[in-house]
Structures are given as C-alpha cells and as structure tokens.
C-alpha cells in the first residue's frame, strides 16, 4: 500500500501519529484491545478485577502468550514499558495519560497490579493504547517488541516499512505474509501505482482521485468509507473581541453552511454536536444545525451590531497551510462575511500553527479527536477551565464553572449511562455557549484491489493493518 504520510517513530513510547500507531498496533498486543465495533475486549489479559473502590486494577495474563521469537510475555514487561513512557527523559507524548498512576507492580509473571491515585474508569482504555504494549527485556527500543500478529522486517524512514507475519502469534495463518507500506508517496503517484499493480491498497484516497471515481460504479464498489471520531470545528477565543460576546459566537455558529463545507471537504458528516460518533455519549438523534442567515443577523443586532460588526481591528482566523484547509477556511470566511462578521485568514505552516493557535489566534479552523473512546478524553483538554493555555490546549480560553463541574463529576463516574448523561449536559451547555462551532465529522476512505479483504475504517484506530486478508483466506 502507498500513503503520502510519513511515520515519526516506531518506538512504542514515542509512536503517536496515525501510521506510527498503526504499525506499532499491528506488531504488538496489549492487555486489552478494541474489536471492530470499537468495544474494549480482553487481549493479553485474560481477566481483571477492580478493587479498592476503583483505585486498583489486578490483571491476570493469559496462558502461553509469547513474542515472535517464542519467549514468554511476562507482567514485568508491562511494568518496564509503563516506566519508560512515564520517564520524563523519554519525552513520550503519551506520558500525560499515565500521570494518574500511583504504582505498577508484577507480583508474579502472570499478574499485573496497577494502583491509581484516584478512581479512573478509563484506565482500561489507557491499557489499550500502544504506549502500554509490553517491552521485551533487551529489545532495541527503536522497534516495538513483537508481541502482535506482525513484526517489523525492515524500516527505511521516509521510504517504507515492511511487516512480516509473526509465526508465534495465535491465528498467524490468517494474516498475509507481508505488508509493505510505502511512505511519503506523492498523491499524484498513488493511483498510478495502484493501476500499474504495484500497490494493492490505497489507505487514504487522494481527494482528486475521489472526485474522479465518483462516476465509476465499478470503482465505487472497491471504495470503503467510514466516519472516524474526529470533529472539525471553527474555534473562537472567548477572551478576544468580538468573541467575548456569546451572542456574536452564536451568530457565527448559525452563519456557517455546514453542508457546503462537507462538500468542499470531499466527504464527512455534518456535525450535530461536539462529540463525534464512536465516543460514548455521542447523540445520534440530535438534529444537525441548519444555516440561518437571518437568525444570525438578528443575534448580531441583539449583541449591539445591527448591520454587522463595525470596521476595526481585523479578526484573524488561523489555519494550518494546506489546500483543503484553505478551501474550508475561505468558505467559513465568506459565510461569516455574509452575516456581517469579517475575518482575515492567516495561513501558517503546521509547526507555527501548532505552537501559536492556542495563544495568538482570535479564531481558528481546527480538528480534534480523542486518544481513546471517552468523552472526557475529548472534552477536558480543550474545553475545561484548567486546560486554558499556557498549561493546556483550551485555545478558546473558555472557563465555565458549571461545565467544569459537570466534566469533573463525569470523569469520576463509572462507565455507562450516568457518565454519558453528565457529559451530555456539559456538551449541551457548550453548544449553547458556543466557544466552538462544530462543522463536520471526518470521514476516511480506502481503495483496495479485488480479493483484498478486511479493509476497514476502524472506529478507534482508524488505520488498522491487522484485519487485512488476501483472497478467501
């Protein structure tokens, strides 16, 4: 398969971008993993008990589990992996996830005990992250310890990574012999390579090709689409004019033509809330907001701006420079202008965007996704009062004690209906206060040759290599 993306690192403690994670995921197993529907299932752990009022988790490992070389996987290897991720020297992007852990112990090779500082029902989700894969003693940390269905055979950064079937993994016969992921392949070349037979699968179909395939019924059959838990939104910094006024924010949210934005994005679903599908608490039944120019103008008039915002200091909308983002930001700009909110676009390179949008932007076009399917994991980093920069990623600088209270209560609540209801209340409040105007939920596409099976858009992992099968196998 060929992708235009690169992967940053195959070190289990560092892998965090889509492809690094997909490769590490395919090469490792963790205590738990997500099934095709995105539900957590036992994996290397056979079972677990939750004790001490939710502050202690005792995992029992399965029998006969082993690495690709046949050596046994032991509880101590999880202890080593977590210690490495949490060590500040590693500078792991996953370190913060595990900051709530008080201790990790392996009383015997088959038992792992994780003690928490405070009850946190998402610990199971954390143990499913690739960061928590077991670390084989003496293993070079540049590559994942091969506990999964595949192992890395060759990795040429920026060129390709080759995965080979792990003979010792259960059901190894079900997987293909080899998977080669060609990295950093120009979009224009991808379909050419598919057509010439050099690649069998395009894990992300370039937008230009999608448009070309639209009228081809045969091709449409080969196309796999799936909505992933990522929300694209228009964010407003509530401490900067004119967004200090909630009515102006609400007017902006009403002004946006989301249907057209989805069209321009080349796929996706109009966002009917902040939480995307796949995150527990997502409400399918909530109606998607419709564009209402008159309503938006009326709100602006109520806010004291009949006839639109007066000319003054320009309002800057930040975006990361990219052809697609530019198109979408221009659509936002023209929608807002129509109701009387003129904004200027500021397109900057990704690195500048990432270091600047939290503090320098009046408003911005952004996307957000959870690390694992949990509403708290989605909302807390971006809309909780304690995440306001410089400490966190709450670029809206939004502080609301009521919302914070709901998020905190939900965080400690056990998984299930009560927790989801609390997050639902917080989300409702956020939607009416409008620090964000959600636009659409991301959709991903794959394009595979006939006979290649098991191609999916996974609700949690997005890119997943482990399910791929070849003709009838």
């Amino acid at each position, binding site marked *: 398969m060929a992708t235009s993306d690169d992967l*940053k690192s195959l070190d289990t403690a560092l892998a965090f971008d889509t492809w690094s994670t997909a490769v590490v995921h395919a090469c490792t197993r963790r205590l738990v993993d997500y099934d095709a529907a995105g539900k957590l299932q036992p994996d290397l752990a056979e079972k677990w008990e939750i004790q001490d009022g939710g502050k202690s988790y005792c995992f029992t490992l399965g029998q006969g589990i082993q690495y690709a070389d046949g050596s046994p996987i032991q509880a101590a290897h999880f202890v080593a992996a977590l210690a490495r991720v949490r060590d500040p020297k590693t500078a792991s992007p996953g370190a913060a996830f595990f900051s709530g852990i008080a201790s990790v112990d392996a009383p015997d090779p088959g038992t792992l005990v994780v003690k928490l500082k405070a009850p946190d029902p998402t610990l199971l989700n954390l143990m499913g992250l690739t960061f928590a894969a077991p670390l084989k003693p003496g293993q070079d940390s540049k590559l994942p310890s091969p506990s999964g269905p595949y192992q890395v055979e060759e990795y040429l*950064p920026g*060129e390709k990574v080759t995965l080979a079937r792990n003979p010792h993994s259960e059901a190894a016969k079900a997987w293909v012999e080899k998977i080669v992921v060609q990295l950093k392949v*120009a979009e224009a*070349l991808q379909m050419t390579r598919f057509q010439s037979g050099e690649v069998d699968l395009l894990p992300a179909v370039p937008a230009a090709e999608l448009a070309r395939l639209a009228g081809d019924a045969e091709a449409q059959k080969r196309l796999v689409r799936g909505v992933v838990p990522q929300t694209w939104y228009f964010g407003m910094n509530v401490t900067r004019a004119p967004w200090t006024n909630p009515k102006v924010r609400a007017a902006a949210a009403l002004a946006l033509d989301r249907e057209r934005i989805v069209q321009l994005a080349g796929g996706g679903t109009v966002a009917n809330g902040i939480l995307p599908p796949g995150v527990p608490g997502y409400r399918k039944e909530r109606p998607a907001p419709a564009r209402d120019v008159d309503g938006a103008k009326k709100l602006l008039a109520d806010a004291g701006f009949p006839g639109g915002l007066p000319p003054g200091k320009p309002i800057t909308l930040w975006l990361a420079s990219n052809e697609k983002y530019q198109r979408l930001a221009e659509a936002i700009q023209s929608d807002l202008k129509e109701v009387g909110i003129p904004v200027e676009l500021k397109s*900057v390179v990704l*690195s500048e965007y990432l270091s600047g949008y939290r503090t320098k932007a009046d408003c911005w076009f952004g996307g957000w996704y959870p690390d694992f399917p949990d509403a708290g994991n989605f909302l807390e980093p971006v809309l909780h009062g304690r995440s306001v920069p410089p400490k966190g990623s709450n670029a809206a600088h939004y502080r609301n004690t009521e919302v914070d209270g709901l998020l905190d209560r939900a965080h400690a609540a056990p998984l299930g209906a009560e927790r989801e209801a609390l997050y639902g209340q917080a989300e409702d409040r956020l939607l009416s206060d409008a620090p964000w105007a959600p636009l659409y939920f991301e959709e991903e596409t794959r394009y595979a040759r006939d006979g290649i099976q098991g191609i999916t858009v996974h609700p949690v992992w997005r890119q997943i290599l482990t399910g791929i099968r070849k003709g009838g196998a």
Partner: protein
Amino acid sequence: MTSDSRVSWAALLLRRLGGAAGTLLGVTLVTFLVVYRLPGDPAALLAGPRADPEVIANIRRELKLDQPLPLQYADYLVRLAHLDLGQSYVRREPVAEVIRRRLPQTLQLALAGWLCWLLFGTALGTWVAARPGRWREGALLGFSILGVSTPTFWVGLLLLYLFVTRWKLLPAGGSGTLRHLLLPLLALSFAGVAYYARVAHTTVRDALAQDYVRTARAKGLSFGSVVCRHALRNALLPLVTLAGADLAALLGGVVFTESVFDWKGMGQLAVESVALVDLPMILGVVLVSAIFVVLANLIVDLLYPLLDPRIR
C-alpha cells in the same frame, strides 16, 4: 606544463581550498541563523496536535532548544568538528545516516542528468552550428524554447502517463534500479539538453566565424578537425563554467523531478526537513549541498588554466 606553472597551479589550489573552508563555515553560520529564525516550533510539531504545552516544553529541553542561540551554534560546531551532524528531530536517527542513504540516489540522478545535458546538448548544438541550415536551426530554436519553458513536473506527469499508465512499460516512480532511473532522467534531461544545445550552438557558431578558424581551414585541416579541435575547444570555456554551476545545483537535489517520480533523493529530503522544521537535518542537507557547490567551483577554477593557458 612547466615546473613553474605547476607551482602556480598548486598555489592556486591551496588558495582555493582555504577559501572553500571559509565559505563552508560561513554557510553553516548563515544557515543556522536563518533556520533558527524559521517560524514554528519543532517541538510542537513533534509532540503532535494533541500535546499539552508541558509535553512540548519537555521535548524542547530534550532537544536543547531552550538554550541560547550562540551556545547552540558553538555546540553544533564542536560536533561538526567531530564529523557529527547531529540527530534528526523527526526521524530520531543520525542526520549523517539519512544523508548517506539519500546521497547515492541524488548522485545517480544528478550525474546521469548532467552528463546527458553536457554530452547530448553540446553534441546537438555543435552539429547544428557546423551544419547550419534554416530547417535545422529553426528546429533547434523550437526545441530550446519548448524545453526551457516547459515545467519539469509537467513533462514528468506526461512521461508517467505515457510510459506507466498507457503503455505499462516502466515502474510508477520510486528509485533503485535502472528502470526507475529512465523516466526521471528523461524529464530532467529535456530542459537541460535544450538549454545546453542552445548555448553550444551559439558559442560554436561564433567560434567558427573567427579568424583562427579560417586560418586553420586555410592550412588545409579537415572541417571536422577544425570544429572539434579549434572551435569546440574555444567554445568549451563558457560551457564548463555553466556545467560546473549546474552540477553543483543538481547535486543539491532536483526537487521537482524527485517529487514527481518519488525519487528518494536530497531534494525531497530538503523540502521535507524545512516543512517539518527538522533543524539538524536542514543544516546537514545545506552543508552537504554547499560542499558540492564549493567543490564544483573548485574543479571549474582548476580546469580553466588547463583549458585556457592564458588564465593563471
């Protein structure tokens, strides 16, 4: 060559080598200053869109980005003196290792392209100059204009369409084998050959109009020998200057050709490193390219006295 001229040639070599070292040091300083003023924080990019500022700060410390600029530069020079180009931020492997992997690809494409330009371009230009005629000169002019003004990436896409999609003769980009080299080489040569043919044509034609050519003809030398030994040799000087500068530029990587054909060379590496604000990698790539520029100029400088004894 007399012993006297050998001494002055050695002095020239020494002088040029000293200048080259100074140039390279200057290049590192300027690149360092420019690169460290690039907008954007490499740590923020490394940490990813979801990272907390705390994680970003950790990474900054880890990469020593929190230290003052002069200290960072001194540190860089010390490492450079030990032939250590540092670690890539993004790939987390030694810069030298990545360049070692990419350089052969670039050398292959650049040298092959350069030879095509020089050989075919000069041959074509000389041939038309030696056998002038309305049809031939018109065709050469047309080819030159077309070659120089057609964007390489467009030629590349056209070649891909014809040879890969349509006729299924060659692989769709990538690097490694001779079959992979053909299309990028064709795309790269199109403009270069056109340009060199034009330059060679003009210089050889002018040389053929000179008195010494008439004298040589009058001596009874054959036309072919006059063209090759007299006219072409005199016409070579501007071509060598041009070729030296072009070789240096080519060795720095051919960005468009590389990206159209997914040729994993230095050009792609340079573009990618800048986009990712991978500071040590940018410094490494620029330094290596600068070494080529300096080397190519050095060679041209040293070739002059051999081609034209008047230059010392």
